Structures are given as structure tokens and as C-alpha cells.
């Protein structure tokens, strides 16, 4: 038993870090450090750089253009990106639809879609959630009726992150409304976002940002060759996809980066006439989060090590729910400490959102203005991808036998 990384793994980390330091533009790094999503241009450029490096699809097998990394290397790679902070490879393509196409798609689909995902030329989004479905994904209603060589798609998806940037959407659609179980009669369909009949409506979140959308399908014609696998077995693709990412949910690197940032901020922020960091109580609260995070880091590494041993196998792991719950709770705790650090200055909204524009000098530091929006917006961490309540149900039922 040895928790330390091997010399090769440490060298790999240095290589990744060097590349990021050399390559990542300051503006991208700063934008991400402020807690904002990178711009499409920033993200696209960065994905392209990773692609040049052969790193844009870290989890794919080499035969499909992946780098052939071990689970530990993939963990290190993602952690380094989070800690920079740098954008991850565009996730909807590389982590979601890509692996599904590889596992379930035809050769034609592979050669048609995989290159655009690797290069980042094609932006993807995910059409799973529907209004009224929430965590009960399988109760979806969007229909795909086969007419000749096309499906006619009607319905509505929601919570569609970055749909307004996307070239393609992968969807779950009901192909057989008469199927016995609601998980049956569902297809996994790839749809060109430029198809006539698609409307994207922005949803603005309480932090004032537009990142999610509703997507409406009104008699949208989709060629049958865009169906991945059997048109009634899309639920298999969905389950595969959802069980795919296990350790990323812990977001250990991201939490580390936020804590570092918070410590630097607290060294400047005033409290009782001194820097906030000199308040032992604040430090204790921060230390409590660091302890939880250290435990989560090791729990994550236990899962990574288990994956390393069971290469190729793919089985659900009780840890993935734990990683999701703890990872989100830790980030939410950090966001609350950031609000604490901001104090009264956190009342001010970020300048960019103010009608006065961003050219004038800041009234309060940007991090302080961003603290409350992030606190509010990060409630999503315990909501999406299966709420933390659903995760606890899973742990109790699947692993404790209750």
C-alpha cells in the first residue's frame, strides 16, 4: 500500500503542468479563476491546443485517437487542468457522446463524428432532461416518429447547457410510446442543431449568467443514420454514459484551486482591522474544509487505483455517489467561505453585469462581487447529474441493501 505517485506519474504531472503554464493564455486562466465559464473562443482555442498535443480525448482508447493513458494519468491530467485553472476538453463531445459512439455507434458514425469531437470543431450539447422529468429521466416525452428515412422529432428538452454554442445535440427520444417499461422504446439520436424546427430559448440563472437553455423540437427531420444503436435501446447508451465519469465528480483539483485562491484573498480582505486570514476562526473553518477535501482526495485515489486494476471492466462503484455528494458539498462550503470573506462588499454585483460597463475601475474587488452569485449558482452542484438526495438513495439501496 502506497499513497504516493510513482516517479513516472510525477514526471507526467510535471509535463502536463509545464504544458499548461507555457500554453494557457492569462485571460483564460483569470476568467476561470473568477468562477466564470470561459468564452466560446477561449475554450475552443484551448481545446485545439490540447488536440494538437494529442490530449483532447484523454479517456479514449488509442485506436480512436486517445493518448492511451492509465486511469492515474487521466486523474492527474484533469486535476492539473482544474488546478491551473484551465478548461477541460469540451465535455459533451469528449466525455459523453464520444464514448457512446465508440461503444454503440456504427463505423460510419465513428468516422463521421469522432474527428470533429477530437478536434473540437463540433460543439455538442446534451438533450436528456425534460420539463417535469428531473431526476426521473426515463419519464421523457420527446418523440421521434419514423417516417421513411427520417425521424420526425417533437418535444422539449431543458437545462441544456451551452445549447446556444452547440453544432449538435445528442438526445434521448421516445421511439415506441407503447413500450411496457418506461425505460424501453427510447432511442439515442444525434441531431444537427441547424435543423429547421429547433428553437433555443435561454434560461438566465440567478447569477445573471446565460449558460443553460430550453431546446424545442417542432417536426424536426433527422436522418435515420443518426440513430446510435437500436432505436429502442437508447436507455443502454444513457446508462453507459451516466456511469462513465466516476472520479471527475469529486472535482478535487478545482476545490484545491478555490482554496488556494481563498487563502490569497483572505490575506488581503479586511476583518477587525487586520487581514481576515489572521482570524483563527476563519482559518479553522477553512481547515475543516481542507480536511474533508484531503479525505476526498484519498477516497478518489482509491477509486482511481481500483479502476487501474480493473482496466476495461466497467461496473458501478458505490464511490461515485460518494464522490459526487462530498465533492459538491465541499465546493459549496468553499463558496460560503468566499461569501464570508466578501463581507458587505459581496452586496455589489459584478461590474460586467452593471449597465455602467466594465471600463470604470472596480468598486469592490471582482472576487467579492462574484462571491454571492457563485454561492447561489453552485447550488446546482448538488442538483444536476442526479441530486444529492438521489445519490443517497443509490448508496442506501445499491450498496447498503436498504
Amino acid at each position, binding site marked *: 500500500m502506497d499513497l504516493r505517485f510513482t516517479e513516472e506519474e510525477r514526471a507526467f504531472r510535471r509535463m502536463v503542468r509545464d504544458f499548461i503554464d507555457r500554453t494557457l493564455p492569462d485571460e483564460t486562466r483569470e476568467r476561470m479563476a473568477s468562477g466564470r465559464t470561459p468564452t466560446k473562443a477561449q475554450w475552443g482555442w484551448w481545446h485545439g491546443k490540447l488536440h494538437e498535443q494529442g490530449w483532447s480525448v484523454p479517456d479514449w482508447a488509442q485506436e480512436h485517437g486517445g493518448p492511451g493513458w492509465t486511469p492515474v494519468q487521466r486523474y492527474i491530467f484533469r486535476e492539473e487542468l482544474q488546478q491551473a485553472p484551465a478548461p477541460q476538453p469540451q465535455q459533451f463531445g469528449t466525455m459523453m457522446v464520444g464514448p457512446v459512439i465508440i461503444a454503440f455507434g456504427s463505423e460510419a458514425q465513428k468516422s463521421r463524428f469522432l474527428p470533429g469531437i477530437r478536434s473540437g470543431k463540433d460543439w455538442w450539447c446534451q438533450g436528456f432532461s425534460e420539463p417535469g422529468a428531473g431526476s426521473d429521466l426515463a419519464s421523457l416525452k420527446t418523440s421521434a416518429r419514423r417516417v421513411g428515412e427520417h425521424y420526425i422529432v417533437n418535444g422539449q428538452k431543458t437545462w441544456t447547457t451551452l445549447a446556444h454554442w452547440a453544432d449538435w445535440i445528442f438526445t434521448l427520444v421516445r421511439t415506441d410510446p407503447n413500450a411496457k417499461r418506461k425505460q424501453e422504446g427510447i432511442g439515442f439520436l444525434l441531431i444537427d442543431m441547424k435543423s429547421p424546427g429547433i428553437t433555443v430559448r435561454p434560461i438566465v440563472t440567478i447569477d445573471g449568467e446565460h449558460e*443553460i437553455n430550453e431546446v424545442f423540437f417542432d417536426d424536426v427531420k433527422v436522418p435515420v443514420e443518426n440513430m446510435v444503436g437500436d432505436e429502442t435501446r437508447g436507455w443502454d447508451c444513457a446508462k453507459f454514459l451516466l456511469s462513465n465519469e466516476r472520479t471527475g465528480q469529486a472535482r478535487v483539483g478545482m476545490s484545491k484551486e478555490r482554496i488556494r485562491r481563498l487563502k490569497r484573498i483572505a490575506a488581503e480582505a479586511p476583518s477587525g482591522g487586520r487581514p481576515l486570514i489572521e482570524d483563527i476562526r476563519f482559518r479553522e473553518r477553512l481547515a475543516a474544509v481542507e480536511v474533508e477535501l484531503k479525505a476526498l482526495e484519498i477516497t478518489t485515489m482509491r477509486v482511481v487505483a481500483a479502476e487501474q486494476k480493473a482496466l476495461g471492466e466497467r461496473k458501478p462503484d458505490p464511490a461515485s455517489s460518494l464522490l459526487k455528494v462530498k465533492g459538491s458539498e465541499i465546493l459549496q462550503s468553499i463558496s460560503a467561505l468566499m461569501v464570508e470573506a466578501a463581507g458587505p462588499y459581496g*452586496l455589489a454585483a459584478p461590474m460586467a453585469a452593471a449597465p455602467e460597463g466594465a471600463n470604470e475601475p472596480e468598486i469592490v474587488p471582482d472576487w467579492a462581487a462574484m462571491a454571492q452569485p457563485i454561492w447561489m*449558482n453552485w447550488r446546482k452542484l448538488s442538483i444536476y447529474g442526479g441530486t444529492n438526495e438521489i445519490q443517497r438513495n443509490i448508496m442506501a439501496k445499491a450498496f447498503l441493501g436498504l
Partner: protein
Amino acid sequence: MDFDLSEEQRLLRESLTRLLADRYGFEARKGYAREPEGWSRAMWAAYAELGLLGLPFAEAEGGYGGGAVETMLVAEALGEALTLEPWLATVVLGGGFLRHGARAERRAALVPAIARGSLLLAFASTEAQSRWDLHDVATTAKRDGDGWVLEGRKLVVLHGDVADRLVVTARSGGGRRDRAGIGVFLVDAKAPGLTRRGHRTNDGRRAAEVTLAGVRVAAEDVLGDPADGLPLIERVVDEAIAALAAEAVGVMVAAQKLTLDYLKMRKQFGVPIGSFQVLQHKAADVMMAIEQSRSMAMYAAMSLEEPDPLERGRAMSAVKAQIGRAAKFVAEETVQMHGGIGITMEYAVAHCMARLGAIEAMFGNAEFHLRRLAETGGLIPA
């Protein structure tokens, strides 16, 4: 011991609740928020008509002679409707400084204008280094003949962008963090040397940065003792904390109602999600947090009569600590129970969260007040 409202108090609450039910639905509120000032002048006029703007002032001076209980009732109702108007800034804070600090002639001149809605006030206290310490004042006030000259910079002055006059704290003597040597000054927003930059706040309201460069204040606009204004400031801020506590209860009640409706209406796996025991228990915890907060809002109202400022301050720290913890808990849990929709701009519960977050950031958060309470010995003597 008596928790009953008087006939007048009940009437006040009912008429305000009716007004807000009629004219402050969530859709109407969206419209008010889009107005240039971020709130509704029409509603302001309606408040004036109802007597809310002159509420705490003596009848002889043009007010309605309301006390802490009336303020509590109004603040809770304004909170439940998530109202945007500068009632706290003008009536509770600005009005409080006039009531406790201004000379009678000055009050006679200003109170009627407040009561009829034509005078807006704001409290300019926070500075870049002060955080929530009311005594940490770098802005200076220098004697200049009969009057004073102010220099300094104030941040997040709530509704400072529209206020006609600003209540400004400034140091007339002593070191930056001394308790003595602080004065309170009523400054015309159009005074030469005063500049403002308005900005949005994270709860969808507005505030301003106020810069004072050689701003002259006449002697009649000094509020209280210019060399020892901190007791006045603390008194008014304690009144504001009491009002904020009641407002927070209102906001929490709004979030609770939305959530209970949602739990009953929204179905998942074929049943209303309110049938899930875990959500039922969360809802019970929310209810307990609100009832405990309501008790503390009452305690706050009652404690304003406490003559000993130290005792009053302890009580207010206890109140703000309770409110702050409950507000954070209720905000987070009601949003969580809503799922994704809970953090969208389109849905009211997110605005409840934003407002509760803002209340927590005003006049000291729960940690700040727990510390203050602990430092002053707690509520129960050994």
C-alpha cells in the same frame, strides 16, 4: 406576556398585505425591477398613502407614531413580497438618524417630506477597510467655521444612487478604529464635491459608491454629537437589524410557501415529491428555522426598548446570528428542494435566496455577531 396585535396593528398589516397581493405579484415585481431606479415610484406613493413612510415618526412631526412592533409587521410584509423600494434605507435607517439625532427644527422640516414620499435617504457607512465595524471610519470631517468639510469614500451605500440626502459617518477626531471621534452628517446628494457611481447589487437592487471630496456640511446637518456619534449609529443600526430580522422572516415565509406548493404539485416517479420523507423532514426543518427566527424577530422588536446599549447590542447580535444562520439554511434548502428551476431568474425562490444572502451581508453576518455576542459574555450569565 402578550403576543396579540392591537386593532390598529392588525389593520396596518392587513391593508399592506392586501396592497402587496394586488400590486406586487412576481410578474409585477419583474416590471418594477426593470425601471431605471430598480424599483417602483408608484408603489412608493402607495406606501406613502398607507402611512408606511412616516410610520416611525412622532405624530406631532408629521409621522404616524408607530413603534418597533409596527416596523416589524411592515418589514415582514415587505419581505414576503420581495419588495424593492428603499423603505429600509429611507425610513428605518435615514429616519432613525433623524429621530434619534436631528434637532427638532430639522425633523420638522424633513419628516413630512419623507412621509409623503418626496425625500429619499441612504446611509453611507461602509468603507474599503471597515468591513462591518461601524467604528472603523477613515472618512474625515474637519471643522470649517460653523460647519464641516468631509473627505473620503463610502462603498455599497444601499439606494445611495437615488437618495436625496445621505447620512454619512466621518471621523472628527481620534484614530481610524477608535470608538470616540466619529460624527454623523446629513449631506445633500447634490453637494459640490460629492460624486456617486450607482451599481447593481446581487439581490437585484441598487447601491452606490460615494466619494466625498471637500464636501461642506452646515452645522444644522450634524446629527447627534459630532465627536461621539457611535452610540447614535449603533442605536439606529440595531433598529435596522430588528427590521431586517422581520424582513428575513417574510422572505423565508415566501420561500417556504413556494416550496410547499412545489412539493405538492411537482411529480416524480409518479408521485408528488412532497411524499418523499427526506423532503418532508427538510420542510419540517425549514419550518422550525422560520418559527425560531420569528421568535427572534419579536425578541428584536421588544429589545429595542432596552435602555442599556450593551444589553441591547447583545440581544441584536443574538438576533442577527439566528437570522443569518436560518436565512442561509432556508435559502439553500428551499432552492435544493426545487431542483434546477430553483436557481433560475424566472422563478421567485431564487430571488428569495438572493435577498436572504444580502440580508446576511448587511450589518454583520452570523459569524460576526456570534463573535460579538461571545466577546460580550453571551445571553446567560454564569
